[in-house]
């Protein structure tokens, strides 16, 4: 059976589990022919799946829920990432020690659906986001790299524990020069990389069965990747058509990613879901979602796949 998986971002160790499952034949063991479609900075996986370009996609929960409210009924069928890897990385020498020190500073934030956790954090802290001021911060739409921090165009930028943070370090900055705020520690973490499908498709038993097999094989891939991080990173590198990824970076990323996936067997923890929804609902003046979503997740697939 053919399955098309739409990634949220470019080929990298963040998605190692799927590449491992494909490479190690876990998918073919389940009679699946999986095509992995890499994403990119301007690809909205939600849009791809809405148009039928993919069967299943990896996305962060905020954007999936936002799409659901916009009338695109997406359902979370599995959640390989237990923890959030997103954080804000700041220059220590700019005088930032605690969250409230952020006021009157310039912060780089990812948009494109990734800005929600940040906005709700700021709402939480009571900091406005409309330019520099005593109770407000200036927000920049951060590009794809960490230059704004290195060039000191921003005092803080968004980073992932497994990726951008290490790019800052690779640029020669020592960890002592930096201070990081993990969203998880701030209580505003939202669920990242989950697997989502269109709701109406789930009512088709054949599709459901396909997803069960897919999730089972994928989780097998993840666990393998956690145990053999170097090999997983190599597999990812083999699949990177851009030739831009470096081995050192991917191996390190794999180790960091493993920390986030290790606590999950693929089943979504309803408590995490609740926390995500709460965070999003308090998203300040322009909340991501305006009402509690219903039926946005299901345990049907994971129950069948993992038991």
């Amino acid at each position, binding site marked *: 059976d053919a399955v098309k998986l739409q*990634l949220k*971002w*470019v*080929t990298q160790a963040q998605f190692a589990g799927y590449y491992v499952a494909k490479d190690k034949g876990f998918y073919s063991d389940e009679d699946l022919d999986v095509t992995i479609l*890499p*994403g*990119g*900075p*301007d*690809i*909205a996986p939600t*849009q*791809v*799946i*809405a*148009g*039928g*370009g993919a069967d299943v996609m990896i996305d962060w929960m905020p954007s999936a829920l936002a799409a659901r409210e916009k009338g695109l009924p997406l359902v979370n069928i599995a959640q390989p990432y237990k923890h959030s890897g997103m954080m804000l990385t700041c*220059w220590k*020498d*700019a005088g930032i020690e605690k969250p409230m020190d952020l006021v009157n500073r310039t912060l780089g934030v990812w948009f494109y659906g990734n800005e929600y956790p940040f906005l709700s954090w700021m709402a939480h802290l009571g900091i406005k986001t409309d330019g520099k001021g005593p109770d407000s911060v200036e927000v920049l739409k951060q*590009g*794809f*790299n*960490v*230059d704004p921090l*290195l*060039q*000191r165009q921003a005092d803080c930028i968004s980073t992932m524990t497994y990726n951008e943070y290490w*790019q800052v370090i690779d*640029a*020669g900055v*020592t960890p002592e020069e930096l201070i990081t705020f993990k969203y998880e520690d701030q209580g505003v973490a939202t669920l990242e990389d989950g697997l989502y499908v269109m709701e109406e498709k789930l009512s088709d038993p054949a599709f459901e069965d396909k997803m069960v097999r897919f999730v089972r094989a994928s989780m097998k891939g993840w666990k393998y990747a956690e145990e053999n991080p170097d090999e997983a990173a190599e597999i990812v590198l083999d699949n*990177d*058509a*851009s*030739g*831009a*990824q470096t081995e050192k*970076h991917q191996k390190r990323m794999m180790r960091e990613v493993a920390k986030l996936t290790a606590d999950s067997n693929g089943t979504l923890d309803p408590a995490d879901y609740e926390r995500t929804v709460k965070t999003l609902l308090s998203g300040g003046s322009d909340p991501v979602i305006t009402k509690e979503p219903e039926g946005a997740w299901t345990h049907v697939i994971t129950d069948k796949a993992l038991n």
Partner: protein
Amino acid sequence: MKSVLAVLTVLAAIVAIWYAACVPMNIKGVLTDLERAGAQVVPEGAVARRDRGAFGLVAKNSFAISATWAQERPRLPAPHQVAVELWQTTVMKKITSKRSLVFHAWVTLSATLMGFAIGTGLGILLAVGIVHSRVMDMSVMPWAIVSQTIPIIALAPMIIVVLYSIGVQGILPKAIISAYLSFFPVVVGMVKGLRSPDAMQIDLLKTYNASPAQGFWKLRLPSSMPYLFASLKIGIASSLVGAIVAELPTGAVAGLGARLLAGSYYGQTIQIWSALFAAAILASVLVGLLGVIQRITLKRMGMA
């Protein structure tokens, strides 16, 4: 001969300015690196230097100048750094390797050529329609002009995704963006060209009682050739731009655009510049090739 000398002089001047520009552009980064490595830098501390003028810093830390041409992640890489990277990623790598620029250039080129072919074909067809039908001319032409004011490149991501989602994948979405960009110059040039015969040349055919088809093949088409080639040159350059931009959102899969993006993503400025230069070389080769074809064709037609 004189022209060659002039071009070389201009190029030499550009390279010289480039080297000079590296110094102020990179000085802050270099000083930070040097400071981390334990060197004595004036003034101390990156925060203190943040708002200082680059030239002042250069003057106070002249020992660091040579380092501005050898940084690993410079704001502006020196010419030789780009050249070395280009050399290593083209000549030194197997062309099938994903790290070879030749491979990426080929990916982009195939989308460019396909888009160019589609765009040119459609452009010529539309031009023929416009020249032969008043209705087409009056209703389509104004919108064709308006369509060019839409920043299609900015929408490329969305278009790619929409195409993606209706099952058009692979090289075709890129080619479609390319085609859209190359299509307009071809229409405009071709309409101009097909209308270039003067009233007398058209009247001459009328006195022979020639059919519209004969008029097209014997007069309009041949006389449009110089215009066609001029717009083909613009068209292929736009095609390349289209293909590169269309590669940005599809993620760092393959192609010069992906390379550019990946370079940007990982702050590999040297990689960005070498991808840019590869694109530039590709563009000039394509335009140059068309120029050669133009010269040969027009010569055989006796128009050069």
